[in-house]
Each structure stands twice: as C-alpha cells, then as structure tokens.
C-alpha cells in the first residue's frame, strides 16, 4: 500500500520512544542501588538511552585504557619522594615496545655519575601515543599502567601534551581504585614470586649448609682415619 513505509517508520520511532519511558519506570525502584547509566547500559535494557555526560558518567570497564601513567608506592604529596619511590626501574622495555615511539626516558645517576635503576625523567608525548597498552602489558614491574582519565581537552599542546614524570606519577592506591582485579592479581603474583625466591634462597642456603656439614664430617672422618 502506498504510504505504508511512512507509517511503519514512524511506528518504529514511536516504539522506541515508549520503550525508553517504560525502561525509566522499571528503573525507578532500583534507583537507590544502581546508577541509571549502569542500568540502562546493561544488556536487556531496551529503548534509546542517552548518557547525560558530563553530569553523568558511566562506569568504565576495568580494562579500559587511555593514556599511560607511572605508579609510585609513596602516597604523599612530595614529588621528590614520589619519584624516588616510583616502581619504574628505567629498564626501557616500554620505550622499546612502543609502536609510536612516544616514550623518552632519562636514567638517573648517583653522585658518582654511575647509572641507577631509577628514571630521572620520563616523557610521554600524548600527541603520538596510540593508546595501545603495550607499555603496560610488557612492563615487568607493574609500573606503567593505562589510565582511565579520558577528559583531557585543553587549549594548547606544546607543553601540556608532553606528560613529564611529575604529571605521570600517580600513587598505587589510585591504580588499585581503577583496576582492582589487575592490582590484586599482580600483587599476588609478586608475592608468590618473592616467596619462590625466598624459598629458593633458603633451599640454596640449606644445601650449602648441608654440603658444608658433609664436607666437615668427611674431613673429620678423614682426620679420624689418619689418626
């Protein structure tokens, strides 16, 4: 029938319109425990939903990655201590694996000019970073992590878009708050590795002691025999 297409089209729009309001009504009893965004973005929710950003922000998945930051175990405000307590050992793996080559590292030196396993300066050029997450994936020290902060628009880029070590430093508690599962996993892994190391060291010490004791006993036996 001529004109049926128009009626059909409008009915689809109308259906979505009503579905949206029905979903809102369904949400009403749950409003105390669940945010609207989380409810409406869950599978099964029908109708059109608009996130009222920036007033309302949906929960980001833990894996979400934007730009990298560096983790420090110091929770205070003092920048120098933060950098000193940073997990980064300046090994340079992140900079080698970075596909866009946007990471510059300056290794710290001690008073004699000998290189230390700490970075003095750490730059990430966020105008080159492709948010791929390789630096975080391959960091052996769980030191460089992909951030959840995505609202970064600003008015100039020459200084603001090169994140230096001060800008990159964020405490471990922040890391834990954005990626709790990963944090717990890595902490557990580290703990196990340390235990393993300790166990190995102990075993080695024990073996050494046994060897020593055996050698001493053998010597004593020999001495006895000689006598």
């Amino acid at each position: 029938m001529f004109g049926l297409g128009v009626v059909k089209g409008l009915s689809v729009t109308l259906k979505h319109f009503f579905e949206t309001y029905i979903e809102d009504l369904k949400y009403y009893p749950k409003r105390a425990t669940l945010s609207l965004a989380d409810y409406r973005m869950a599978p099964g929710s029908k109708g059109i939903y608009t996130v009222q950003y920036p007033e309302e922000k949906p929960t980001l998945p833990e894996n979400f990655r934007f730009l990298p930051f560096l983790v420090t175990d110091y929770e205070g405000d003092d920048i120098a201590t933060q950098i000193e307590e940073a997990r980064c050992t300046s090994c340079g793996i992140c900079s080698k694996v970075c596909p866009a080559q946007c990471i510059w590292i300056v290794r710290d030196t001690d008073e004699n000019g000998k290189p230390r396993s700490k970075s003095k300066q750490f730059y990430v050029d966020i105008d080159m970073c492709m948010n791929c997450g390789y630096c975080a994936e391959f960091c052996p020290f769980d030191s460089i992590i992909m951030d959840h902060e995505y609202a970064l628009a600003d008015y100039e880029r020459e200084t603001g878009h090169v994140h230096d070590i001060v800008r990159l430093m964020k405490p471990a508690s922040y890391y834990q708050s954005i990626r709790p599962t990963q944090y717990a996993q890595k902490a557990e892994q580290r703990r196990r590795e340390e235990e393993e190391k300790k166990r190995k060291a102990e075993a080695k010490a024990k073996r050494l002691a046994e060897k020593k004791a055996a050698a001493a006993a053998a010597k004593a036996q020999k001495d006895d025999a000689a006598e």
Partner: protein
Amino acid sequence: MTTESPPALDNTIEVPEELKQNVFITTLDAIYNWGRMYSTWPMMFGLACCAIEMICAASSRLDIERFGWGLMRASPRQADLMIVSGTVTKKMIPNIVRLYNQMPEPRYVIAMGACASGGGPFKEGYNVVSGIDKYLPVDVYIPGCPPTPYSLVQGFVALQEKMKRQSIKTVPWYNKDIPSEVIPVPLLGPDIFDPRDVPLIKQELQKRKHAAEQPVVVEEPPADAPKKKPKRAPKPPKLPKWDTTPTPEVQALADRLNEAIAPDAVTPEAETLVVQPEHLIAVAEYLRDTEGLEYTYLSNVTGVDYLGREPRFEVVYHLYSIRHWGGPVVLKARPADDENPTLPSLINVWQSADLQEREVYDLFGIKFEGHPRLKRILMWEGFRGYPMRKDFKEPYFEEDVKPFTNRWPLGEHEHIEFKNPYKKNVYYPDDFDPDTWQPVGEELEEIRLKGVENIAGMRTDRIKVNMGPQHPSTHGVFRMVVTLEGENVVDLEPVLGYLHRNHEKIGERNGWLMNMPFTDRLDYITSMINNHGYAMLVEKMTGTQVPERAEYIRVIMSELNRAVSHLWLIGFLLNDLGAFFTPALYAIKARERILDLFEEVSGSRMMYNYMRFGGVANDVSEEWLDKARFHVKDTLPRTLDELEDLISNNEILLARTKDVGYLSPEKLVAYGVTGPQLRAGGVNYDIRKAEPYSIYDRFNFDIPVLHNSDVYDRYLIRVLETRQSLRILEQALAQIEPGEIMGGKGGYITRVPAGEAYSRVESPKGELGFYAVSNGSGNPWRYRVRSSSFVNLTSLPEMCRNGKVADAIVILGAHDIVLGEVDR
C-alpha cells in the same frame, strides 16, 4: 570610550569607574555568548578513525544535540566549527585550509585526536602532517587515539568555556580594521610547502646552490688534536634469503607452462613461479583461460624492493580460482633494468590489476607498459621519490628500524615538527622556484565539453564535478571526478590518497608486534578482523600454534565485528539514500552494545589491539560470554528484524536500489571484487568456506548468494550474512571451553624466520590479505596489506557509468569503503 560620565547623584550607590561603561556590555556579552555557546554548527566532514567516534557522539548514546551542537552542516559557509577528526595528510591539507578559509567568522577549530593535534602514531609518515596547528589556529585539542565520544563532548564543553570568555568588544570579527584572516593554501610540491615558508625554502635552495658551486675543502685537523673516533657506518640490513627448492606441485605447473609457452618462461622457486617479463602476459592468459586451471581472480599485486640484490625489484601476483576454489598461484616478475624498471601491464588479463599496478608505480616507480592510466594514485603527481623503496628517506627520517635509539636512555623530549622541515632529506628539482610553483594536476582543467551530443541525440554540455574529498557521502576523504551530462554519469574517476597514512612504510620500520595496533587503524570499523588477519600471517610464518580457546575467542570477536560492520553499512547506506540518520541511529544503538562488549574485554571501543601471535591478549569471563549470548540471541536479531521490517520492503528504497549499479558476475570477478558484493552478483565465494582458516570448518553455516547484482541485493546480502554470523556465534558461544589463551613464546620481541607468506581472511568488505617478506630479523622486510575496499573500487566507474549522479552515491555506499583501508 572617552565620553565623560554625568556626575553621580549624592544618594546613589557609587559605581566603580571601570564598571560604569561595561555594565551594559557585560550583560550583552553574557546573552551573546550564551546564544553562541548553544547553537554551534559543526562542519560535517570526517577524516579518519576519529570521525567514527564523532558520529557516535552525534548519535543517541551521547546526543550532542543536548548542547545545541547537533546541526552538522555539509557546507563550510554555514558552519562555524571545524572538527578536524583524524589524521591530516599532506594531500588533504590544502583542501582543509580552503574549507577553513570559506568559513565565516566567528569560526573555531577543534583538533580531535592525537593525529590532528600532533601527527599521532603516523607522525613519522612521509604523507602525514604533524598537527593541524601548523596551518590553522586551533582552539581546543582533544588528546587520545581515538578519543572516546565522551572526550569529544568534554572538548565541546572546553570550547564553550572559551566562547564564554570572549567579549563582544574585543572579538575581531566586529572590528572593521581587522580583516578576516585568510590562510595561504599549502602547495603540493616535491614535498608539501607552506607559502609562508617560502623564504626558508629559498634560503635552503641558496645554500645548496652555494655548496654545489664551492669546491669541497677538507680541513686538515691540527696534528695535536685528539683523534675523533670515526663513526661506524650502520650495517646494511640482511637481505632476505630462504630455501627455494620448488614444491612438487609448483614444479609440475612450471613444467606445464614451459611446455605450453616457451622453454624457460617460468622458473619454479619454493611455492612461487618466477616469470620472464616478456612471457608474463602469455603465462597470465594461459593460467586464466586453460580449463582446469581457471585462475580468473587476481587477488594481490605488489612490489618488493630487494635493495642490494640483482635484479633489485620484484612484482608479486597472487592468483586464485573462483570456480574450483583453488590457489594461490604466486607469480613473480623481475624487471631487468634497476634504473628504469618496466614490466608489461596485466590490466587486459585481469582488470583488478588497474589500481594495484598504479599503486606499485606510485610507491616503487615500476612502470607498467600498456596501462592506460599510469599515474600516481596515493601520492600526488610531482612528489619526489618513490616512498616504498628501501633507500627512500623521509623529511623527518630518524632510523631504518624501531626502536629509535634517541628515545632511550638519554633522550630529551623534542617535537620534531618544530625543526626546519625543508632540509636534508627534501629533494628539490634544479628548476624549482617556490614563488612560481604550480602543482601538477592541480591546475584548473579547461573544459572542452561544450555542445556535445548526448545519448538521446540532444545537444548538451558536459560538466565535470568533483565530489569530495570532504563530501559527507563519500564515507571519508575520497574524491570522485564525475563527468556529467545533465544528471547522467558519463564517466567517473576515483581519486585516492587523501588518507594515505604510510601504513606499509611505517610497518616496515616497526617490529612485528608493533604492527598489531596499526592494523586496528586500517579498516577502523572492523579492527578485530584486521587483528585476526595479521596475527594469522605471522603465525603462518613462525609456525605458532593457537590454543583452542583462543581460536574460539577469535571467531567470536570476528563474527561480532562482522555483524557490527554490516549494521553500520546498512545504517549509512540509508543515509546516502536520504533517510538521514534515523536507520543509522538504530544501527548505531545496537553497535554500541557490541562495542561495550569489546571495550570490556580489550579496553578500547575501536582500537582493540586484542590479538597476539599465538592467541589473544585477555581472557573473556563467563559473565562476558553470558552478555555476548544475550546480544546474539536478543539484541542483534531484534535490531535486524526491525531494520528489515522498516527498510526491506520500503517502496522508496526499492525504487532507488533495484537494478541500480548492475555488473555481471564475470566482470565482478575480473575487477577483483570480493566479499558481499561478489556474492550479491551470484558468485559463491567466501574465504571462510573456500579456504577455511582458524576453526571456521567446525561451524555449520551457509554462504548466502543473491543473483541480481544490484544495490538492493548488496544491501540484502549484508542482512543475510549478519544472520549467518549470528548462527556461527551461537555455535561458538555454546562450544567454547575453558583453557589456555596464549600459545607460542609471547614476549615483545618476535623474530620471524626468513621467508614470505600471504595470508587472507574474509573481512566484511571482502578479502583482506596480508603479505610479508622477512629476512629473519625483528622487522618485516616488506609488509603489504591487500585491502578489499581498495581493490573493490576498481569496479566503481563501470558500475556508475550511464546511471544518475544520485545513484553513484548509493553505489559507492554499497561498496562500503573505509578510507583507512583504501589508502592505508
């Protein structure tokens, strides 16, 4: 204002002197700025991946209409905001500057994404501009690659903040003394140059001339000076060499060819046939026409530069048979002359060689005799050098391979784009004069098409119309030069390269693993499938085994992505037909649901970087699988039903798409068209069935084939294919079992044994192939992407000819091109 204010009355509150004149203005400012802040009209044009996120911000999830920003204008004269969304190439920048100049004041520019702000990951490329702010004044930068739609909205808020601070008294556009700024349009010379930089270039030219005239004086170092250690010359890279003992099948085929054509027409080498250039056409015709062989489909043509070997160049052809699903037969031809490499063109044997041979000519400088339109395709005419040659150096050239040594451990950060770009690696011809330079091919074309007789015998004028590169219906930065007679298309020529981001050149500098996130940016709607194809290539070369669960995850991701891509196409095909944004809105709504799934598991909405050699990066949880099952059972079929109910029998759609853009099945194959368009023409060819990869042979699914080969069938086949994808997904989601997700060695350094390989997957656009040559080191020697969108475009002129101009848009829409993949 210097007028004296009247003396204040005693009983009035004293107004401070500086406020006296401004109370009115401040209120007016507030009203004026409030009005501007909430009725900004952005220009409707997108450059690259970021544009997709911009579209998402304009659709229902974020709905920028809430801010009064939703009225996107296709004409710069009606727009006051330019969102530069994506990579700006040198070929594109003159057009962007022109558009900016056409915008009326007040005008604002948002640089969206890392590429527009500062070049992004493609910064090192020879055709990429390191940031739009070298040419245009930028108001707001939005970092991220890509920024999420939320970031874009935050950028809008930042721009509103900026507008709020402007005063009607100080803004330049009401001041008659300040003329509106006109940015000089950059010129495409040997490299791009900004007319404002002409003095710099002249200085450099002068210096070179001077240096050429002066005899070289070698200064004798004083005897007591400490001897400098001579810098060690970098070792030349190892030439790729591998065992070339032919396999029995290839040997047999070679014997057959030699018997039929000439005694030494071909030499078998490993799995390939090296053909003597003079016998190339005969061999090709024999392979195409002989019964039993019937290699009617030329999939891939590419060049390889073996610098240091004799002969240096090589052109590789990959042939498949559509009839018996056989192949590949790999032909290699080596032009004898290194200085002026020439080969016969195969365009008369397989038309699909058309654009691909032009690309080889453009990037390697290999000439194809007999090609009717042999000119540059991705770069512009007059560009210096052939970029894919191994000895080509870019203006900002750093090193041959990554990691670049200057970044660690003692690299102070530097913005390379602020260094003088007109030095060292830029080549200027002897007669180059920047003042009088006229870019080749950019002159106004003299139209000698007046008073011709048209098909109906009427006298008429022909006109040429440039559609694009920023036309909203070209799905990105693509240009069609259409010759029209009234509304009829007489001829159409695709012009590419506006998003040529040097993917292959950067890929050859990258380590193998580094290329994975770059493949995301090829066809940015189907990143998962790109990941899959590339991972398969490297796994094929290294012999890595993929665990069972990882294979299942890969198939699930690929098929979900196929569904998403087809939905996107259906929405935007309707856009092109004039149903502006309503069908797209519902398609995007379903797509967002799937993107949420992808984001949850990979961390990004578009650039997943999810697959690794030997598996996938993250495991999926049981919860995630449940969500996926729900979407496969409920959301996606519901959306498809709705779209089909809404669209499939709509009389306007039928009138616009039935019998439009017909091309016969034989021609489709000859043009190298693959994917849904080929199957809508009655040819049953799907790589998932023809050459099953991954674990596709375990699933029960059909390949839908339609026979009308028009735009309607091309639309319908996507709906049918999405339903088949859902079938695969249901089975995969039911069968998946716990287990390992990574096989192979892992780690960040991948070494690939010397050799070559071609691996292909069925992407929603067609055949997506990856070809690589390895010399055994950590970087590919040659890395090539055979993209379906690019080769499919070969058929566009033929499909559009003798149709209406409005149909050309729809035919292009049904091609489903993504410019990231077309231009790479």
